[in-house]
């Protein structure tokens, strides 16, 4: 039942609406400058020494941008990968397993990368 309050909130019987769509767009917008930053970071550090790479990542501005990228990209990739699975994996069991694996994958990337950047920033 769509009560007037639900209609105002834009929610129907599914109890959720455009959150995923909006989150995908929000992270997409954040990813535009952050991906440019990542591409330049990669290409400018090809074959760089350990000391150079470590000093680069220890820079607070670089660390903040890298953390922002990883969080935004992990959310964005989880949404996108789920969309691919929902469209192409038809067996119910396989689908659920793949969706769970996707969340674990995105979570693992976010946590491991964040820990690495924090470690590098704190010099430990």
């Amino acid at each position, binding site marked *: 039942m769509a009560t007037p309050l639900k209609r105002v909130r834009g929610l129907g019987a599914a109890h959720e609406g455009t959150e995923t769509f909006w989150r995908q767009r929000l992270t*997409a917008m954040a990813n535009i400058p952050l991906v440019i930053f990542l591409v330049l970071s990669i290409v400018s550090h090809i074959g760089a020494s350990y000391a150079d790479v470590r000093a680069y990542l220890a820079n607070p501005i670089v660390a903040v941008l890298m953390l922002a990228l990883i969080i935004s990209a992990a959310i964005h990739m989880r949404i996108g990968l789920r969309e691919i699975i929902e469209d192409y994996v038809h067996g119910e069991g396989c689908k659920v397993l793949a969706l769970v694996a996707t969340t674990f994958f995105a979570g693992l990337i976010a946590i491991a990368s964040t820990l690495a950047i924090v470690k590098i920033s704190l010099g430990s």
Partner: protein
Amino acid sequence: MTNKLEAERPLSPHLQIYRPMLTMMMSIAHRITGFGNAVGFALLTWWLVAISIGPDAYATVDAFFGSLIGRVLLFLFTWSLIHHMLGGIRHLIWDTGHGLDKVSIEVFAWATIISSVVLTVLIWVAGYALMGGP
């Protein structure tokens, strides 16, 4: 029983029935590059974790990315990132309701392909020039 039902149901045309169109290929490319970016982020995580561990761990990762396969993967990752980013900008424009006419979608498609390749090559040439050769 289910097989019989499936056989009698009217089926929508399969993908291979359609003549491949550029816009259709771009839609598929957006998904493939999105998936590729996820794989690339796993490589990025490996790189970051290795740096946080120490010089020995970094040497292993650096040897991989310094190899021919590593370099090719890195090049493809940067192209995939740029292609997906440009494709994403196209989607954000479409979200506003603009650029959905037949001419614009073709122009957007070609612009995405050409500029993603040109930008990636330019960035790599500049990167190698900066590092003093490959």
